[in-house]
């Protein structure tokens, strides 16, 4: 079952990411991004990173996407004009895709550490909130505090940037 899950998720991720790059309508792009982020959360679960999967859904698919949608509605962004002829795109996609598939199937197996397999449930853990929290509040606590300061600075910065100039 594991390989089946991985392949479904992998194909879904690649398709939704490509759709994000390909489609012109900003709302469609936002929906593609949500799908890609949720699939990424599912991939985190296949990697036994449960806490990160939850964080991914809450922070990325929740907060970040709401920000994007708000800005799309606020700015009333129009669809981009097409400028490159379609055959250039088709050749580009086929070329890059061919090189990528060739590289990934021929070059990645040359590195022995990539051939490691590990079944679901055999991981050493570390994905739960408790274990991650222990690390965050002990060895990484200075970084954790710095993140708090960063978020505060970002919040203040956004408020300052979006303020309307009272004089004009």
């Amino acid at each position, binding site marked *: 079952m594991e390989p089946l899950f*991985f392949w479904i998720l*992998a194909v879904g991720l690649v398709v939704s990411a490509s759709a994000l*790059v390909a489609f012109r309508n900003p709302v469609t792009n936002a929906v593609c991004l949500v799908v890609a982020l949720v699939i*990424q959360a599912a991939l985190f679960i296949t990697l*036994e990173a449960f806490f*990160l999967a939850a964080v*991914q859904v809450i922070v990325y698919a929740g907060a970040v996407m709401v920000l994007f949608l708000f800005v799309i509605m606020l700015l009333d962004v129009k669809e981009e004009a097409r400028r490159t002829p379609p055959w250039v795109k088709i050749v580009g996609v086929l070329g890059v895709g061919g090189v990528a598939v060739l590289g990934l199937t021929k070059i990645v197996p040359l590195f022995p550490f990539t051939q490691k397999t590990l079944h679901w449930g055999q991981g050493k853990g570390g994905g739960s909130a408790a274990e991650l929290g222990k690390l965050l509040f002990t060895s990484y606590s200075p970084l954790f505090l710095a993140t708090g300061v*960063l978020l505060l600075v970002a919040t203040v910065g956004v408020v300052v940037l979006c303020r309307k100039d009272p004089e004009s």
Partner: protein
Amino acid sequence: MIFGEITLGHYLALSSLLFLIGLAGVILRRSLLIIMMSLELLLNAANLALVAVGRFQGLPDPQVAVFFVITVAAAEVALGLAILVAIFRIKKTTAADQLATLRF
């Protein structure tokens, strides 16, 4: 198994493919909004690689790194969109190729 075993290489390949797609979006698209969405794809590709390596090597530390990346990405999106709104107020456009002047 029909598809064979899933190795670390599979996850790294998927991550690099995702990175390529995101990079194509950053280079090809002209709307600043879509460029920022593609940047999120790049960050997600890096996150996926980190979590995969951490799990297959039995280390919990990469997950902490991903936690920080997600936090920084949230701050980055908030600030980037604020700058985008500020640019839109002045120039009435979010197309990257129409923002070629250094002073307004």
